């Protein structure tokens, strides 16, 4: 005999549940948490280095979890800023999941932190579907990448709370078209905040940090 069983269940229910638990724990601890997503080579790590340094100078306690398919190069590099940093090696997996993030928080006192940045694996597609419990999803776009990237990867840009333009110090040299880039961003996410930065020159780092600290305590809707 054949029968139909209605399920109406989220496919990534387990990840969403774990992300919800993380979000509650972050809210309770009073720590701001951001999930940074970009293509490889956008300059996430250099910008994070600058952000961590800036935060320390302002007397803030910050920590970072950095995801990569292999090596702990990024954690070593970021550790030099003096912040608490842990590497998540995904062994080839193209995105981070809530479970991986949760397991790497073991032993960290979240209540002692002001800000935790989770640097996702460099990828503009796969991280979209996986909620990590963050309150702020940040997508980074460098001036060397082509201004139409937001419309080429609308899922990710649409689901983000903040767009960060990186490497603006070389914008002129690569003939970056600011208006075209903003048009493409607005087409998929009309109200999103955009901040322009240069890790090398230190431009926009304070503003970026302020935006991270101004985010609401817990994101209202899981994606």
């Amino acid at each position, binding site marked *: 005999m054949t029968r139909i069983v*209605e399920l109406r269940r989220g496919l990534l229910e387990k990840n969403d549940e774990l992300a919800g638990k993380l979000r509650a724990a972050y809210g309770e601890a009073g720590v701001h948490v951001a999930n940074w997503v970009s293509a490889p080579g956008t300059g996430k790590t250099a910008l994070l280095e600058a952000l961590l340094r800036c935060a320390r100078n302002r007397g803030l306690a910050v920590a970072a979890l950095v995801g990569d398919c292999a090596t702990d190069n990024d954690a070593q590099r970021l550790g030099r800023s003096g912040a608490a940093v842990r590497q998540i090696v995904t062994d080839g997996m193209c*995105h981070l999941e809530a479970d991986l993030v949760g397991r790497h928080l073991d032993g960290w006192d979240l209540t002692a932190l002001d800000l935790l940045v989770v640097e996702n694996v460099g990828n503009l597609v796969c991280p979209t*579907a996986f909620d990590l419990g963050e309150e702020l999803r940040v997508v980074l776009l460098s001036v060397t990448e082509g201004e139409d990237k937001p*419309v080429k990867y609308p899922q990710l840009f649409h689901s983000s709370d903040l767009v960060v333009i990186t490497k603006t110090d070389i914008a002129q040299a690569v003939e970056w078209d600011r208006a075209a880039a903003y048009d493409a961003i607005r087409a*998929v996410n*009309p109200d999103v905040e955009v901040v322009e930065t240069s890790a090398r020159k230190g431009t926009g780092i304070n503003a970026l940090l302020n935006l991270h600290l101004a985010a609401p305590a817990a994101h209202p809707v899981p994606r």
Partner: protein
Amino acid sequence: MHELSVAHALVETVTSAVAANDGEPGRVREVHLRVGELSGVVPDALFFCYDIATMGTALEGSALVVERVPVAGRCDMCGVDAAVNGAVRFVCPICGGPLGALSGGRELEISHVVLDDAPVAVTS
């Protein structure tokens, strides 16, 4: 290519849901999904992973049926409910205003499964 992770999650969710429903998984014949254009999941890649992920589970040999859900939302300016074709520019097709809260397109859910019950043992 995160569809393999998605396929494993699917197997886990269906297996536990079916077991919780009647205690006996029986044989899963079809799994029906609703996949939004904005979900970040590509059906073709999911089909590709499905046979591997279901091997040796209660879902082995079952068919995966995917319903694509277009991006849809309400226009902030003219109040029209609109579906966005091509899912690239989230603007109202009538007045060109930005679409506010989206009502569809992010779905990634298992709508239902079709089961073949295990034959009932007849005792005389």
